[in-house]
């Protein structure tokens, strides 16, 4: 074939990335499979109430085994590259620190920014690959008019992962392929079956890869205990929006905005966490209507489809992964800070999560909710 490239495929051992490797191989490219070893899943096993049995999806030996089997089946070279140190520094530590300061982090975005589209691109270049392909559901296209790489929502909106990819730079996008962007998940599974991949029926991974079972509170306890650090005392007062103290709480990292259960107070009407005040260790509670807000500020903004926001822009904004983008005005208020004003108030805008801005199916950019 004329267009043959050397492509590194980030293989997680799941259906999506395995299918990407098989597709690109079938297209005649020179494919190299890479799995990033990011976290030792056995590290926390059995500690501080963490499960003894490790069933974590990413980086478990089972997933490396599955990825290796796929590579062998389709006939490509395959390597595991170890980036545990970087992952701990750039993803796990910030994850713990965010919770301890009363925010609700998204480790997957940090991993994409610092590991999958940074370190893995470095490895790919080192070993002579032209670009890196992943199994994300997203599209990347070059736009001649703006001379920019665009990140677009995929054909299968139910699998859309652009929310986690808003931090990609132009340089990173220019070296990235998302071969599944035009496909639906059932089509991907069908292709996996046609390619004879044994893991075509493997279930999707849902949870945070380094938090087996999804219990992040236990993970934080276990992680700090293992590092020999005491869990900081973040216990404090439970207050109403008017500042009235109505109880005590065990630590701000146990709460997230919008949470209703586990507040430890009983009142006539349902109460929700509406704000977490890290500096005062206060958890502010209120009724459902208090959860709604029309504005948010986001920092550490990365812009993709435009190089700057010279004037306010009409966009749709997603404030969490499972959120239908809502119409809003986007305006620049600082160097890499923006103000988002929604047409309709939005429920549970959560500091630490990302706000990602869309213009139809195109990702304008995104930032971290302050």
């Amino acid at each position, binding site marked *: 074939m004329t267009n043959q490239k050397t492509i590194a495929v980030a293989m997680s051992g799941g259906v999506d990335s395995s299918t990407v490797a098989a597709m690109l191989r079938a297209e005649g490219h020179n494919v*190299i499979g890479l799995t990033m*070893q990011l976290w030792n899943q056995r590290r926390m096993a059995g500690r501080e109430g963490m499960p003894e049995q490790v069933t974590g999806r990413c980086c478990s*030996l089972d997933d*490396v085994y599955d990825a*290796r089997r796929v590579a062998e089946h389709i006939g490509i*070279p395959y*390597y*595991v*590259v*170890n980036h545990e140190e970087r992952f701990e520094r750039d993803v796990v530590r910030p994850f713990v620190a965010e919770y301890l300061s009363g925010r609700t982090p998204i480790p997957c975005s940090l991993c994409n920014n610092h590991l999958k589209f940074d370190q893995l691109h*470095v*490895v790919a*270049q*080192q*070993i*002579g690959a*032209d*670009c890196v392909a992943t199994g994300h559901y997203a599209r990347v296209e070059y736009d001649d008019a703006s001379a920019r790489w665009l990140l677009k929502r995929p054909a299968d909106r139910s699998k859309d992962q652009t929310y986690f990819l808003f931090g990609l730079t132009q*340089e990173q996008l*220019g*070296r990235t392929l998302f071969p599944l962007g035009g496909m639906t998940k059932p089509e991907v599974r069908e292709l996996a079956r046609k390619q004879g991949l044994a893991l075509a029926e493997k279930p999707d991974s849902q949870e945070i890869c380094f938090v087996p079972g999804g219990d992040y509170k236990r993970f934080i306890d276990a992680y700090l205990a293992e590092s020999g650090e005491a869990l900081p005392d973040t216990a404090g007062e439970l207050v109403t929006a008017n500042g009235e103290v109505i109880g005590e709480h065990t630590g701000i990292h146990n709460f997230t905005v919008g949470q209703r259960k586990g507040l430890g107070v009983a009142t006539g009407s349902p109460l929700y966490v509406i704000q977490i005040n890290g500096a005062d260790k206060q958890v502010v509670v209120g009724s459902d209507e208090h959860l709604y807000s029309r504005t948010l500020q986001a920092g550490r903004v990365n812009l993709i489809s435009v190089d700057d926001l010279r004037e306010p822009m009409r966009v749709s904004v997603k404030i969490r992964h499972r959120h239908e983008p809502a119409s809003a005005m986007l305006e620049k208020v600082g160097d890499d800070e923006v103000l988002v004003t929604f047409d309709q108030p939005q429920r549970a805008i959560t500091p630490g999560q990302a706000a990602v801005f869309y213009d139809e199916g195109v990702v304008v950019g995104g930032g971290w909710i302050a």
Partner: protein
Amino acid sequence: MRRIYLDNNATTPVLPEVLEAMRPYFGEHFGNASSIHHHGQETRAAVERARDSVASLLGCRPAEVVFTSGGTEGDNLAIAGLTGAGDHVITSSVEHHAVLHACKHIDETGCDVTYVPVDGRGLVDPDDVRRALRSNTKLISIMMANNETGVLQPVEDIGKIAVEADVNFHTDAVQAAGKVPIDVKQIGCDVLSISGHKMHAPQGVGALFVRRGTRLQPLFYGGRHERSRRAGTENVPGIVGLGKAAELAMQGFENDDDKKMSTLRDRLQQGILAQVEEAAVNGDGAARVPNTVNTYFDHIEGEAMVISLDLKGLAVSTGAACSAGAIEPSHVLLAMGLRADRARASVRFSLGKQNTAEDIDLALALVPETVARLRELSPSYGKTVVNS
């Protein structure tokens, strides 16, 4: 693509003569060596011939050879089999994981373990071993040759200390067997482990020398095989292969094969150092086995080097192979005081009997250009990452 294999410290190809010697024992001669009948007698004779050959290689009596499944079993049998709760054990910080993790296990179950350090060349100071002795010291376990650097430890000096102190001495000779002559009397060891697949016999067979009179608790319980030191039906084809490999190793020493190998290794080492700046040999200044050179190349990642070279057909390694295939910084190089970035920038080249001068020349054509390309991409080499 022509493939060149320079990772013989990980494993070696079975030599054709070894395979030929083994072949009848997969079919024609299939008996259980413990059986009374003709079939058993045939394989028993083959096992005992192999035992003679291994005994000759090690300079011991045949009755002192216990066949095992490999180096890890031998190391575990020696360490667990010679110690009990309350005992003190001396080992080094650069041992193979088969020894280190076995020591960690007994440390957790009632023994006390001292890990003596190494100097910048990777050498244990025998005086450190002497100073570590205690009244309850039961075992000293110091390797003969290091798997990552090839550095040969002063095992004879340590053997003398062990004899004086009346302490058992085990040496992991997995990376020495077949590469340098071994004489258990000269070393003064009581137990010595070797592995078949590091010396052109198959994977899954090894041997442990156990000096007569040394009381060893078995790891396995079962039949009275191997004089009740290792229960389990013998791996006859493997044992026959190990015996043949031992014979070939002895012939090799007579033909100066070890000297020829060190000439090839030196050609590789000198070729690399002549063509690549900011590179040096780990373990330089210490005596090494003739097949190994471990080099760091500043400003690169050994991991990227190994993958890049593999994609071009040259198989080398960053250090000890790990079960997940993931690559971690070498505890051996760190123990030698190497900076962490240099430990990560280190690559091991290890030759086998099958390698030729042509292999070395091809490796020498690939290594400098690969280092140069990786350095182009390295921020610490004074350049930014280029866009492809």
